[in-house]
């Protein structure tokens, strides 16, 4: 269960979120809507623990107060965010990074097994054949970067999945992968928070909706 109580967030002294309350049960997918600048992305990054966001209030996940946990600790406890604009990391091989992602969920898994699984999700996401050998996101289009984020989530099956416009820039044929992923996480008892403007995705697998305006829930 995810419980957010009176969450306030500010960046460089500017208040973005002002007293958000939210509860989500296992298996729920919550749509976060609102105009541009209403605080949707900031809400997801605050839950993820972005270090430059000053936070007040509480975030509790499965009975544990995670408000003071570092971002990487939240990730290792099942939080996953699919970023809207993932960076390029020169020199860092995609497969090496994927192997590292997967380690936290399956510390005993053999490297060869992780490599096989990673290649399988690249293939499922229709990423280019040489994807695993490339530097991370090197020469990637916006759509390919989104697919790369989804591929990581598919590899991990997180307990809290934060999707920040996962469908923007994705071709129609890949959009079903987003709904498949949401379904898989929810079926496994996870929770999904979804920010999207896509009506089709909004209608597909949602149990609750919250609307933000000026950093507050309507």
């Amino acid at each position, binding site marked *: 269960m995810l419980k957010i109580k009176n969450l306030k967030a500010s960046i460089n002294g500017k208040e973005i979120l002002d007293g958000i309350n939210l509860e989500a049960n296992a298996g729920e997918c919550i749509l976060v809507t609102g105009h541009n600048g209403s605080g949707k992305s900031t809400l997801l990054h605050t839950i993820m623990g972005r270090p430059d966001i000053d936070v007040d209030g509480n975030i509790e996940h499965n009975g544990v107060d995670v408000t003071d946990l570092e971002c*990487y600790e939240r990730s290792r406890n099942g939080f996953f965010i699919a970023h809207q604009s993932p*960076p390029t990391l020169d020199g*860092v*091989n995609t497969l090496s990074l994927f192997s590292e992602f997967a380690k936290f969920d399956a510390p005993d898994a053999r490297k060869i097994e992780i490599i096989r699984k990673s290649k399988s999700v690249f293939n499922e996401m229709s990423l280019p054949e040489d994807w695993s050998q490339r530097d991370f996101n090197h020469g990637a289009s916006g759509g390919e970067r989104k697919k790369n984020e989804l591929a990581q989530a598919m590899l991990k099956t997180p307990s809290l999945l934060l999707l920040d416009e996962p469908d923007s820039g994705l071709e129609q044929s890949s959009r079903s992968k987003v709904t498949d992923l949401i379904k898989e996480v929810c079926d496994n008892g996870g929770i999904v928070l979804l920010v999207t403007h896509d009506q089709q995705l909004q209608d597909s697998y949602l149990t609750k909706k919250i609307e933000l305006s000026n950093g507050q829930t309507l």
Partner: protein
Amino acid sequence: MAKPYNKVYTNETGISLNLHPQDVDNHEEYNITIIQEEGHCPVSINIHPEKDSLSKVNVRIFAENNASVDCILSCYVAKDASGVDTDMQIRSWPFDKSRIQARPEMFVLNNDIKAAHGNALGTLSQEDRYYLHSKGITNYKDILKESLYEG
């Protein structure tokens, strides 16, 4: 297209290379990685492109601890080497107390050529660091080193 030349040098005390793209080497692309964990390594890489040849040279330098690397990457285009198309790029990642000094140089004696060079420092921005931490990753240096080892 000819197969790329990929080579990783680790903890060398000196590297000296003379590259002849599309001629005696029969390569168009060179990927040279230098990983220095300790000691000093002077590096001299000289490219001698032939007439109408295509070449791309990528040099990646990783240094950690107290290691140091001084790299000069030079391209010599002869007077009769028209039609040359060459690109040389250096990327450096200095960690801990290490030091990397890298310099690309071009000596061009023909006007009918294309030549490009770049020299960049591979540091992580605050956003990059957050991205990695949001995926649970705190050992960027180790992953980078492993990736570079694997070429």
